[in-house]
């Protein structure tokens, strides 16, 4: 039972902490997950912006040197004079300087004049269309941007470039099966600048970089945008450039550890970015790892969507962050459960130990102890219980004492009663003789004065004996009260009236303070009057002339064991008081402190008997030299005892 309280408490504590822990775990993880993911997506989105700027910047690093070159006097002269050798030299310098993969010049009729690298002087006629110069001549202004270059053009420019541009497609999970084996076109950044001198179009200078297998842009993104950050030996940031959906430039690692060139973008991304020309930001698998990715379309110089620029951040970093946070949550929850269990143990101990002591104490009471050890009182409800228990034990003790006293008293009365009755019977017959003959003698006229006085003494002494025997008989006469409704105020008044003469003679004032509307009591009027008389006489005897005796009658808060209400009559004198050692014996038969001849010692014993037969009680409070108070309590209805 006790263990079960403890277990219940601990289980409750653990349960609450478990529920709170689990709830915060779930909610916290979800919130954290969302925050981390949105933060990561935001970051990747910004990273994509940075990557795009780097991509565009690369275009400018082509456009600017080209423009600068066309402004040079030497270049103009060489072009005007068609000094091919000099032009080739200048092209080569420029290409080196601007790290161009290709550069060349066409004349005003779009015929190639010369180019950097091998095949510096075009030999073939009917060359394939040059997208740079064609567009520049169409617009009549310098142009720069992204171009898709055909295999033929690349081959004419430089067979090595065509070779570099050719990318074998690698089957990629999450994509449609390849329709061709290889990508031969090239994606390039390039520019073309028409050279006009004195209103005459001398030619068009063009140049660019092939992005196929290029590492510069993507690695710059990795270095600058992602600061070459590594996580568990792998780069966190990745960048890729796609021609259509084919990865042509990337630092995403392939299965074999190289660059995953030739793999393709996921179908979903392709649909969104190439199909709907939208930015796409999502957590997605890239080759073998999960990444937080962002893609955006690449438009060529004509505004057509020709590829995709994509960046990705290794998801594992964020996943691990989530996991470590989650494990902290779990750890805290587990810690909380242990703490709850400990607190539960402590609280249960605090709660249960006083209860246990109470149980031990009640066992002690059962075994008869009336001063059980209940330990220190606690300040809570258990403290109230402990107090109530103490009070209960005290009340039980008092009751036991009272009933023991009552039992002793009634046993005393019964035995004294039996003795008294027997003695009375034996004494009364001879006493009749003594009384008769004394009185007969006293009637004689021929007695001497001395004889008459002696006879008178005999008569008085006999009268005393008669009174004593009568007292004994009264005491033993356990008559059942003849009950009737009695107005207590009236009864007290009439009793005081009976005593008035005696009080007046002694010079004692007897004052009655009645309570109005006092309920009537079902009692034996005569018996109760003798009780009041007895106590009043004692009071008057104890009181000095000039002092006062106060009698009160009032409804009492007291109830007896049967729960009956009652009336209390108090008789207070300011007399000599009763010595503490006499208080116990006050109601014993034949106990008296009065001089011989002035009391039988039966008055209070008889009075107590009468009150007890009414179901009431008499309490006495007294202080030597200050006086005594007799409180007589009787129940309103009374019961036959």
């Amino acid at each position, binding site marked *: 039972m006790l263990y079960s309280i403890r277990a219940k408490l601990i289980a409750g504590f653990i349960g609450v902490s478990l529920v709170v822990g689990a709830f915060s775990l779930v909610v916290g993880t979800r919130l954290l997950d969302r925050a981390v993911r949105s933060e990561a997506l935001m970051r990747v989105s910004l990273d994509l912006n940075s990557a795009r700027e780097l991509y565009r910047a690369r275009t400018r690093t082509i456009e600017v040197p080209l423009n600068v070159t066309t402004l040079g006097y030497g270049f103009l002269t060489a072009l005007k004079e068609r000094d091919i050798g000099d032009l080739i030299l200048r092209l080569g310098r420029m290409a080196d300087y601007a790290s161009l993969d290709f550069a060349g010049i066409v004349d005003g009729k779009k015929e190639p004049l010369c180019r950097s690298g091998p095949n510096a002087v075009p030999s073939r006629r009917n060359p394939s269309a040059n997208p740079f110069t064609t567009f520049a001549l169409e617009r009549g202004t310098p142009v720069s941007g992204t171009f898709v270059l055909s295999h033929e053009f690349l081959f004419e420019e430089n067979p090595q470039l065509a070779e570099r541009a050719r990318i074998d497609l690698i089957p990629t999970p999450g994509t449609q099966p390849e329709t061709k084996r290889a990508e031969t076109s090239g994606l390039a950044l390039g520019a073309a600048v028409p050279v006009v001198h004195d209103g005459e179009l001398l030619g068009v200078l063009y140049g660019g970089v092939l992005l196929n297998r290029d590492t510069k842009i993507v690695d710059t993104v990795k270095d600058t945008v992602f600061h070459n950050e590594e996580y568990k030996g792998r780069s966190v940031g990745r960048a890729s450039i796609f021609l259509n959906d084919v990865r042509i430039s990337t630092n995403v690692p392939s299965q074999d550890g190289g660059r995953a060139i030739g793999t393709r973008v996921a179908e979903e991304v392709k649909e969104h970015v190439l199909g709907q020309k939208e930015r796409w930001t999502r957590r997605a698998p890239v080759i073998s790892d999960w990444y937080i990715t962002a893609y955006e379309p690449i438009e060529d110089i004509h505004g057509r969507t020709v590829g995709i620029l994509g960046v990705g951040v290794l998801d594992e970093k964020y996943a691990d962050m989530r996991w470590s946070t989650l494990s902290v949550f779990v750890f805290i929850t587990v810690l909380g459960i242990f703490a709850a269990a400990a607190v539960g143990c402590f609280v249960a101990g605090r709660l249960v130990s006083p209860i246990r002591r109470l149980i031990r104490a009640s066992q002690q009471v059962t075994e008869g102890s009336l001063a059980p050890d209940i330990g220190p009182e606690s300040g809570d409800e258990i403290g109230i219980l402990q107090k109530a228990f103490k009070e209960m034990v005290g009340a039980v003790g008092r009751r036991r004492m009272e009933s023991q006293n009552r039992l002793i008293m009634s046993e005393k009365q019964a035995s004294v009663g039996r003795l008294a009755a027997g003695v009375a*019977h034996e004494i009364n017959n001879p*006493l*009749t003789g003594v009384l008769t003959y004394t009185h007969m003698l006293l009637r004689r006229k021929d007695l001497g004065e001395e004889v008459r006085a002696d006879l008178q003494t005999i008569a008085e002494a006999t009268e005393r004996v008669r009174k004593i025997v009568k007292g004994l008989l009264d005491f033993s006469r356990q008559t059942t009260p003849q009950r009737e409704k009695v107005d207590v105020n009236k009864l007290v008044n009439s009793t005081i009236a009976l005593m008035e003469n005696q009080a007046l003679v002694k010079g004692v004032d007897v004052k009655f303070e009645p309570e109005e509307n006092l309920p009537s009591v079902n009692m034996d009027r005569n018996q109760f009057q003798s009780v009041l008389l007895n106590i009043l006489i004692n009071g008057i005897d104890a009181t000095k002339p000039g002092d006062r005796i106060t009698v009160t009658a009032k409804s009492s808060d007291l109830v007896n064991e049967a729960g009956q209400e009652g009336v209390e009559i108090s008789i207070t004198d300011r007399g000599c008081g009763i010595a503490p050692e006499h208080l116990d014996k006050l109601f014993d038969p034949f106990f008296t402190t009065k001089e011989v001849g002035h009391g039988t010692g039966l008055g209070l014993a008889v009075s107590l008997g009468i009150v007890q037969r009414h179901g009431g009680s008499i309490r006495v409070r007294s202080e030597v030299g200050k006086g005594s108070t007799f409180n007589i309590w009787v129940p309103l209805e009374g019961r036959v005892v």
Partner: protein
Amino acid sequence: MKILVVDDERIVLESCGRVLGDRFEVRLVKSTDEALEAMSREAFSLILVDIKMPGKDGMTLMRHAKDNWPDIPVIIMSGYVTNETMEEVAKTDAATFLAKPFTPDELVEAVDQVLMKEKGHG
């Protein structure tokens, strides 16, 4: 007038005889049997009887007296006043009850009272 006094105690009989002897003719007997015998021979105006006596007690005498001589008043005496005695006395047709010990005056008063009442009735 003749009065019958019944008591097992000699001193009580003598006392009654001494007090009442001046004014009445008094027969003193020591038991119920003697009393019944006396009553069957003589006529009495009043009977004084002690309740507690060895053998047939005062109550037995009361019943016999009331059965045979219902007109004779009876005064019951007792020095042993318990609840039971008082209840028994209350059940009888006794004219009055006289508690022992009594003074001559008390006895005379009780007897006079009963006789006066009887006279009134008669």
